[in-house]
């Protein structure tokens, strides 16, 4: 699993459901896989002080984020018996209802895929230098805070 150059995880704009379907399709040749676990983060049209969030605009410190993601990936692969793991995070503008995070783990038996997916999502939210700017429908914005 060691590779010199960290894999890129960032995509411009929303992650399309069709792309997710295709990613699943690509695993049909890996017939040692018994379980897939997928997490998707979707943009909520939250209302804050009477303002509705229309989109989130994501920025990152890409060089650092890719190094962090590489560390997370190595740690998860050494902790869980995974067949594979794929992570995609949006940059730029993602509208309410669209998907900005796609974490996809696969394993022989279900427990590894399920636990690895959850831990990866938690670590991404905590450790990746990514910032979300919530753009309001009419005007203005506020910086998102992860809970």
């Amino acid at each position: 699993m060691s590779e010199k150059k960290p894999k890129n995880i960032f995509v411009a704009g929303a992650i399309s459901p069709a792309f997710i379907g295709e990613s699943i399709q690509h695993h049909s040749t890996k017939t040692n896989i018994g379980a897939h676990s997928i997490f998707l983060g979707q943009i909520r049209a939250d209302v804050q002080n009477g303002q509705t969030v229309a989109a989130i605009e994501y920025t990152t410190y890409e060089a650092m984020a890719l190094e962090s993601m590489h560390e997370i990936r190595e740690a998860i692969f050494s902790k869980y018996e995974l067949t594979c793991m794929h992570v995609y995070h949006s940059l730029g503008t993602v509208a309410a209802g669209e998907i900005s995070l796609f974490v996809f783990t696969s394993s022989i038996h279900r427990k590894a895929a399920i636990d690895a997916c959850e831990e990866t999502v938690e670590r991404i939210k905590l450790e990746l230098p990514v910032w979300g700017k919530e753009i309001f429908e009419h005007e203005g914005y506020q910086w998102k805070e992860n809970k």
Partner: protein
Amino acid sequence: MKINILFFGQLVDITGTDKILVENMNDTDSLVNALHETYPVLTQSKYLISVDKKIIEINTLLADNCTVALLPPFSGG
């Protein structure tokens, strides 16, 4: 001796730029003091500091051409 400084997220709203170059700064404490003088609102901001992509927690010596980033709370995902 040149130090690259990067700002991210809401800090860019304060500094008005995502990148500056400073000279002759020995360590992160001196750098932070200098930045707080230039951008007083930064003193009220929550952020972590990284040097060459590693988050540091104590005063750290700076090498020529290193990159220091000011990172507000992460909100990815």
